[in-house]
């Protein structure tokens, strides 16, 4: 996927005015968030249940190398082939070659965020192998050539009329209808034929269990099950941090994943594969390839802070409560991952120079942190990124902040170093503010703070400062 993270502000300004998308964002994320709270109530102690999944994720990341080796050993023993890739290119080459060697003209795909991260579809097309997304939302997003709007509902914002036109154009819809159910069934029929005849199915992985060498997929539609049942070859791709210690931990994480993701107790289908099909089985893959792609993760594993990002299980709960995401939707984030999840991940994957607007677009309200089943402190990471950016930490490929901003903070720093300077600068700024005040508000300060006043007003200075008021009180 071609990243457009640099255009965050432009796309956000456009999307914030998209009334159709806004109507959805005002309705759907709050409903999912509410359902999540309700269904968390099925735990005798929801707080502890959350704390346990956070502890499991922390431990999984801390024990990553050991767990990965254990997983690989057990998966190989069960007959799977495990292939490692340093980066997106190596992973793409592995998968394209596997498909080529088997002479396939198309592959069907279960929803996999990492394949979007490494831009697999584009490369497959170049290699004359058609990648067909089979998750309904991904299928629509792919045909329209759009990034995912929401990790759970990638095309949930697309108007039905647009989907109708698309399906008519593709020739998979016979009758003119905007009924979502009929549109869904049209896609079902089209993809069913593909599922019947696929030779190679491609899926992501939600969890890889070290103890047993098992890979787990969680879904509602059944498309991943088809990808793991119908073709003779299955290729499943994961990043290293998908590994968890044992099946017990996996089951607890499963509960948290489904509750956080869609507010369900469990998704319709959870499949746990250990090796390819065994002799005598009439369906299931004869060969199972597990591709582990690092794509920079072992590098940001080195930093104690950024390591925390690897805990993420991609449930998307942080999107649904984020005051920024719920106004702008998924497009402005410009990459496979959106919302707070994308704001912590995209900068590490793409470099700070291309993603600076992402980690600045946050009110630091902390709701993401408070509900994260993986125990990630998103706001602390945003502050860390900003800090590393200002320090020009080369590991993150930052770009210098604008000269004006740097000058401002240098002055700010000087002005606040001594008490007398602080008092003086406060007095000065009060004079300035008075000058621009109109009916209790400031809507501009001439050439200063134009960035702020582009979108916002500022309350006028009060009659006296807190210190002055406090001084008077003490005198009484």
């Amino acid at each position: 996927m071609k990243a457009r993270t640099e255009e965050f502000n432009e796309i956000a300004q456009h999307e914030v005015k998209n009334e159709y998308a806004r109507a959805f964002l005002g309705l759907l994320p709050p409903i999912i968030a509410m359902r999540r709270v309700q269904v968390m109530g099925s735990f005798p102690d929801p707080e502890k249940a959350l704390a346990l999944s956070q502890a499991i994720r922390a431990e999984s990341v801390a024990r990553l190398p050991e767990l990965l080796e254990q997983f690989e050993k057990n998966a190989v023993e069960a007959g799977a082939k495990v292939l490692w890739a340093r980066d997106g290119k190596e992973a793409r080459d592995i998968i394209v070659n596997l498909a080529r060697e088997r002479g396939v003209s198309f592959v069907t795909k279960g929803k996999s965020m990492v394949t979007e991260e490494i831009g697999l579809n584009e490369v497959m097309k170049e290699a004359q192998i058609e990648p067909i997304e089979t998750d309904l939302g991904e299928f629509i997003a792919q045909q329209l050539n759009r990034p995912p709007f929401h990790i759970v509902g990638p095309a949930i914002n697309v108007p039905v009329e647009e989907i109708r036109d698309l399906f008519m154009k593709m020739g998979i819809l016979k009758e003119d209808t905007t009924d979502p159910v009929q549109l869904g069934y049209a896609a079902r029929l089209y993809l069913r034929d593909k599922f019947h005849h696929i030779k190679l199915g491609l899926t992501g992985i939600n969890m890889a269990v070290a103890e047993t060498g098992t890979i787990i997929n969680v879904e509602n539609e059944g498309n991943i099950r088809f990808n793991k049942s119908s073709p003779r070859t299955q290729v499943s791709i994961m990043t290293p941090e998908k590994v968890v210690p044992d099946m017990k931990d996996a089951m607890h994480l499963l509960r948290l994943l489904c509750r956080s993701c869609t507010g369900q107790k469990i998704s319709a289908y959870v499949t746990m594969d250990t090796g390819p099909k065994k002799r005598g089985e009439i369906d299931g893959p004869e060969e199972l390839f597990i591709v582990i792609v690092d794509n920079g993760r072992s590098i940001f594993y080195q930093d104690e802070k950024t390591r925390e990002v690897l805990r993420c299980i991609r449930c998307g709960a942080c999107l649904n409560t984020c005051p920024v995401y719920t106004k702008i939707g998924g497009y402005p984030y410009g990459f496979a991952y959106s919302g707070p999840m994308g704001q912590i991940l995209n900068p590490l994957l793409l470099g700070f120079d291309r993603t600076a607007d992402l980690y600045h677009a946050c009110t630091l309200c902390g709701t993401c942190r408070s509900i994260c089943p993986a125990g990630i402190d998103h706001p602390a990471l945003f502050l860390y990124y900003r800090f590393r950016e200002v320090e020009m930490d080369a590991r993150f490929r930052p770009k210098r902040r604008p000269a004006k901003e740097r000058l401002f903070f240098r002055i700010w720093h000087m002005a606040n170093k001594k008490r007398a300077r602080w008092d003086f600068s406060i007095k000065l700024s009060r004079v300035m503010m008075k000058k621009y005040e109109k009916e209790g508000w400031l809507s501009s300060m001439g050439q200063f703070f134009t960035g702020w006043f582009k979108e916002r007003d500022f309350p006028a200075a009060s009659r006296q400062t807190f210190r002055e008021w406090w001084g008077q009180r003490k005198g009484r």
Partner: protein
Amino acid sequence: MVGTKEREVIMGAREEILERLRQVKQPLLPPRPVLPPLREFSFSKEELLERLIDELTKQEAIVQRVESAKEVKAKLRSVLEEEGITKVIVSTDEVVKPFDFPGAGREWGISIRPHTDFTDRDQFKKVVFEEVQAGLTGVNFAVAESGTLGIIHDEQEPRLISLAPIAHIALVPTDRVVPTYEVATDEVFKNGQRIPSQFTFITGPSMTADIKATPFKGMHGPRRLIVIIFDSPEEAKG
């Protein structure tokens, strides 16, 4: 297969990635919080069954409860007739096999074919994708906590029977009802045991809400999930 030169690159990648991960000194982890057990653990058999049926119904599965194994055939026949199903594929797992449904089907004038009629994969796929209207299977577990069916896929239980046909009919003997997922996974992934190639949790029919957030059943998998619950022979005796 992957070429030799590529294999070297890949092996190099493995070492490089793991080596980099190993460089990091691991922090001491705080102890894990102790979780109170899920409520289902203190349920009686009847309560578990009640929870199971309640959860299945919430997921829009159709639940048929019969008293004993003897009534299963008659119930299945009425289900098939009601749904207008004339062609069925059946697995050969230990729950469904003793019933000899193919034989019963011949009496009823309904084609119920065991998957063992097919030895060719493509032929089998053609039948499940294009010919039958329902797949009939047993289950290894029925998990009460969320109304989830646990099915081990093996020689007797092909994956596509419960997936490709538009209806899935599952037989659940009451002695296979368990409170939580872990009871099932402890059994399936027991140490030293042959782990099945695939173990699947099924909760309700296939579903989506990807267009306009409108939920509907039967996106790619079955539109209908019909669950026939019967007292297992041993319990019926007692």
